[in-house]
């Protein structure tokens, strides 16, 4: 199941309908704080892609300059940048300078006391809008479970930012589902009628309906509704030449 989009829509509605004066930055700051509390990390922050493609710092677990700098310096290079551009997690278990990958970022991070980084993409339906970054004083990686939870938190962060799905989309999708369900019901009813008349099983009954639909270039739902409405007899379904309306 697509957890991301479920999370997205639910929390956005939450934001719109359940909470007064919802402040996206507040929630993102809270999420960063939760990362630090719940996971084995020492600092967390969110950076987002601007429309022109640069990453902007949005929120973090701490107001300390030490932490803020980690994000401000990632304008052109760094785990955030790589993560946001590839849409894949970027991990460095042990930051060591000199670093070919991040020649400016890594020495600054080490100078601030951080020795490992885990950057998680904030994605929805193939679009990466930014990254959630986790920094540790110790080297090493976050355990799998923690990484899953962190991705979950990144997903939550994504949804607090993206726009509300228009009500029209939901209405349209629901109408499509409603229609699909009705079609299916009619087809099953027609199968029953064919199965009883021909004394065959449901699969064979369905094959008869499908064959007629193909031979006459009609949708199977239409054929089924004609059978159910007794506009076509089952025998003419099987032997179109013998009786029933001309095809």
């Amino acid at each position, binding site marked *: *199941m*697509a*957890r991301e*989009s*479920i*999370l997205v*829509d*639910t*929390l956005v*509605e*939450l*934001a719109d309908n*359940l*909470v*007064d*004066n*919802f*402040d996206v930055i*507040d*929630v993102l700051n*809270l*999420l960063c704080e939760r990362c630090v509390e719940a996971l084995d990390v020492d600092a967390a922050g969110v950076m987002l892609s601007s429309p022109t493609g640069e990453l902007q710092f949005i929120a973090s677990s701490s107001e300390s300059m030490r932490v803020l700098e980690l994000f401000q310096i990632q304008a052109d290079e760094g785990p955030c940048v790589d993560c946001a551009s590839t849409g894949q997690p970027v991990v460095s278990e042990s930051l060591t300078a000199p670093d070919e990958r991040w020649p400016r970022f890594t020495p600054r991070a080490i100078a601030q006391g951080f020795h490992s980084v885990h950057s998680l993409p904030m994605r929805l339906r193939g679009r990466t809008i930014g990254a959630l970054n986790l920094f540790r004083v110790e080297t090493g990686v976050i355990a799998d479970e923690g990484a899953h939870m962190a991705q*979950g*938190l990144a997903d*939550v962060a994504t949804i607090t930012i993206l726009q509300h799905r228009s*009500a029209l989309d*939901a*209405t349209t*999708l*629901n*109408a*499509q*589902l*409603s*229609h*699909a*369900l*009705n*079609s*299916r*019901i009619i087809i*099953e*009813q*027609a*199968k*029953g*009628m*064919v*199965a*009883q*008349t021909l004394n065959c099983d*449901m699969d064979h009954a369905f094959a008869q309906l499908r064959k007629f639909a193909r031979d006459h270039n009609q*949708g199977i*739902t239409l054929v089924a509704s004609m059978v*159910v409405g007794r506009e076509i007899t*089952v025998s003419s379904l099987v032997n179109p030449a013998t009786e029933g309306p001309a095809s």
Partner: protein
Amino acid sequence: MLAGRVASRTKALVATERLLEIFGLLARHTHATPARGSLCSVAAEFTKFDGANIALFPESKQLTALCSSNAASQSLLELEITLGEGPTTDACESDNVVCVTRLGGEGETRWLSYAPLAMANGATSVYAFPITIGAARLGALTLFRWESGELSEEQEADAYLMASVVARAILDLQAGAPRGSIATQLEREAHFSFTVHQAAGMVAVQGSLSVSDALVALRAHSFATNQGLSELAARVVTRRIRYEARDGVWYEVYRSSE
């Protein structure tokens, strides 16, 4: 002013935490019982009820079961479909939450047919929440307790949140399906049972009835013989029972060999 901001931050945090719990449960349930589908079992566990049903209410107004968290709940939804009345039906039609702390309790006069039978099936408290997104009305989430119990504010908030997640889950599963078809992902998650409709087609031919009259006949016979609608439908489809046209009687068919 500050108190308001603190209150809304707290609300956002609480709601976020409850949502994370829902998704944790969804992940766990999907791995544990992949065949069963997770939405209903999660709904029951998250809201701390004994049973949960999710039903769809399409334009045709034919209430359709999507899933149930256990056999008892499934029977209760079938009962509603058979009788054409009940909490799920009311929630779908009125778009309001339906709350019954004690079925058959003092002053409780709703559902003259459904209530006593539901109680006989073990239900005491029932709460039905419409599943909606904006103007889109999908169906209802119905929660049961075998023993009477009020709905606390937290539980009510949890149920609303669950209904909200269910709404999006259903539409998300359906999105991308070819026009006119139920999405494969949704079929996997749900427990659609179309046996009743297959049986209606058969009975329509057996009894020279319209399919809608055949459905009525199936429901009536289910009620009269106190057997579940899908149980009866299965017997029709496997040709162990048929409907005779001349005298409107249901005949059991006995096979001499298997």
